[in-house]
């Protein structure tokens, strides 16, 4: 198609722009600008104005194209939100399986269109409630799952053949997935019908979220097992959610979030290819997960750059042939780290602005944070407001009525290009190190993130970055907020339930299943069928994870800062 702007016209605008710059400088020497510099929350400088000069080589065909067509900058699906709105998928999990089931029903009744599960720390780390390491942690930051029995209760009465379920779980992802599949099987739902996502992204754990179990290499092996299994057995399932959210929450910049996420994606594709899998067989089931932070345009540019970059990587680096292999489909969560404990009602506004960025960025599914999330697990009322935020955006504001409405903005296109360029620099650097696994060994992404986090904190102290209510517009008296309280008897009740399950099961069968699981781990057998068998026999989460730990070893935090 060729470039959009005629060279001589751009030159004309360029001269006029210089003249305007002069007038601007005169204006600003009379009345100084309101601040010394205008950085994004990530620290990138933003110009006072963007014109065609900033995108003078803009080529609509190669840089944007149409929704559902390479390079997918404007959206991965042809009809995007004209077809249907993004999935409203609220992350939820608290206390016992019953309590979380109740919260799931509440959210579905209030109009959410997909399920998303938050697990407690013991479950996230592959421990049962009764383990001494789990003391005091049962049900505190998510739902406690010890056996298939809990999983059955968790999804009781929910149409998992029609609703998709996301599970935020990493080291024990294959185990929880096995429990979910066993639960569905018991309900007579065929695997081919099941849709959902397991986060299952260990590389970002070592980099940012830090739920650990086994070291990086065996963790990758387990992930490839799930990719392989999903490709054949659960074709509608997103076997991995390659995540930038946590990288950003740990303090990275937007460019780092994008670059490290895609670099993780590259590592996973390479690992699957090494196993001998065909790229077009598994690539369509890779999904992504990004943060929606508070700097509005920086986020929109990030999502658009992400789609274009991944399409290029899959097409040109990995030679994928199928269109769907090139799609970067992503879930978004609004930024937890942008919320403030002082004046928490302000967080409703932050979440709304962040959600808007995600929508204008073309997300496939969205979680909006509750305003009280900085204080405790969200109450029902707070979660409802967060869900309504999405519904108001989708139904009232008109922002979803046209696809990629910011396409063509001189600012947004320029920022998208800049973001892509800066992210590729990081990816090339990581490639030079030998890939993400090697980069992690060298502590590279971890230290980049720690440095960015420290820089931001220092800027807050110096008031170069403002957080309303925290370092500006502070109040002495806070308005009271009702927060969620965990039932203190939960831990012992959960232990009692799990013991009852253990006493009521076929111990011999469980022992056999765990042995076969161990053999599969030590050999080359895919672990998933063995995990499903063990889960179906009511082996506990920790019993299965202990097998993995015994074969693959245990990873410990290096403790650098």
């Amino acid at each position, binding site marked *: 198609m060729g470039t959009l702007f005629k060279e001589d016209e751009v030159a004309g605008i360029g001269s006029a722009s210089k003249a305007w710059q002069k007038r601007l400088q005169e204006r600003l020497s009379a009345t100084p600008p309101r601040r010394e510099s205008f950085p994004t929350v990530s620290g990138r400088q933003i110009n006072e104005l963007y014109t065609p000069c900033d995108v003078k080589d803009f080529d609509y065909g190669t840089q944007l194209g149409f929704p559902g067509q390479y390079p997918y900058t404007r959206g991965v699906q042809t009809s995007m939100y004209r077809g249907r709105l993004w999935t409203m998928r609220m992350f939820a999990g608290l206390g016992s399986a019953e309590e979380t089931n109740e919260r799931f029903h509440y959210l579905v009744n209030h109009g959410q269109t997909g399920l998303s599960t938050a697990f407690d*720390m*013991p479950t*996230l*780390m592959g*421990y049962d409630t009764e383990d*001494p*390491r*789990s*003391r*005091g*942690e049962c049900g*505190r*930051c998510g739902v406690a799952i010890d056996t298939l029995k809990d999983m059955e209760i968790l999804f009781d009465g929910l149409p998992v053949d029609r609703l998709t379920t996301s599970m935020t779980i990493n080291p024990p992802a294959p185990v929880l997935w096995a429990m979910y599949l066993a639960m569905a099987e018991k309900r007579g739902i065929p695997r081919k019908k099941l849709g959902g996502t397991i986060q299952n992204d260990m590389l970002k754990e070592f980099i940012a*979220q*830090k*739920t*650990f179990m086994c070291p990086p290499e065996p963790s990758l092996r387990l992930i490839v097992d799930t990719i392989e299994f999903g490709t054949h057995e659960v074709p509608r399932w997103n076997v991995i959610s390659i995540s930038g959210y946590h990288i950003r*929450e*740990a*303090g990275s910049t937007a460019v780092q979030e994008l670059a490290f996420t895609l670099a993780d994606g590259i590592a996973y594709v390479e690992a699957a290819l090494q196993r001998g899998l065909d790229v077009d067989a598994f690539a369509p089931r890779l999904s992504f997960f990004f943060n929606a932070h508070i700097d509005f345009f920086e986020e929109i540019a990030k999502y658009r750059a992400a789609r274009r970059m991944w399409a290029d990587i899959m097409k040109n680096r990995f030679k994928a042939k199928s269109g769907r292999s090139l799609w970067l489909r992503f879930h978004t969560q609004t930024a937890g*780290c942008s919320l*403030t*404990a*002082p004046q928490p009602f302000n967080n409703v506004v932050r979440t709304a602005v962040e959600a808007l960025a995600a929508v204008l960025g073309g997300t496939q599914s969205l979680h909006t944070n509750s305003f009280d999330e*900085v*204080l*405790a*697990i969200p109450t029902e009322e707070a979660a409802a407001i967060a869900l309504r935020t999405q519904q108001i955006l989708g139904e009232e504001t008109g922002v979803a009525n046209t696809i990629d409405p910011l396409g063509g903005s001189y600012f947004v296109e320029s920022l998208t290009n800049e973001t892509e360029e800066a992210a590729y620099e990081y990816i090339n650097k990581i490639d030079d190190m030998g890939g993400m696994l090697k980069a992690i060994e060298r502590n590279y992404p971890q230290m980049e993130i*720690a440095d960015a*986090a*420290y820089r931001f*904190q*220092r800027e*807050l*102290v110096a008031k170069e970055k403002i*957080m309303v*209510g*925290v*370092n500006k517009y502070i109040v002495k008296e806070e308005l009271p907020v009702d*927060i969620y309280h*965990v039932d203190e008897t939960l831990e012992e009740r959960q232990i009692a339930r799990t013991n009852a399950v253990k006493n009521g099961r076929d111990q011999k069968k469980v022992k056999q299943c765990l042995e076969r699981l161990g053999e599969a781990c030590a050999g080359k057998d895919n672990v998933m069928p063995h995990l499903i068998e063990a889960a179906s026999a009511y082996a506990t989460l920790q019993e299965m994870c202990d097998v993995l730990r015994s074969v693959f070893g245990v990873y*410990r*935090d*290096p*403790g650098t*800062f």
Partner: protein
Amino acid sequence: MAKPGLDGHDRGARIIARAFRDAGFEVVYTGLHQSPEQIVSAAIQEDVDLIGLSSLAAAHLYLFQKVMDLLKAQGADDIMVIGGGIIPEKDIVRLKALGVQEIFPSGSSLDTIIDWVNKQVKPR
């Protein structure tokens, strides 16, 4: 600077560790996933003047209490303890009643924390 329990949110803990190091303090960072026993043992071994506990996964009441109990049991309760993270107002009161000297919840300024330590904590 310690991370008790299974909580993996270490952004704040690592920033605090760095800030104190930059302010001239000697800092020992335990890394993640430390039991109260490990923390108290390390604190005694390293002969620290102050323990900072970071919690963002809502298990602070049990874990911080355990640390306080163990310090007392081992005759090391002259080591001051402060905490931070996601700790609601009601719990701050309870933790102080256990002997935790101060809690710096999310949003606290680095300078405020360092000033407090400079004023309140003496070498043992």
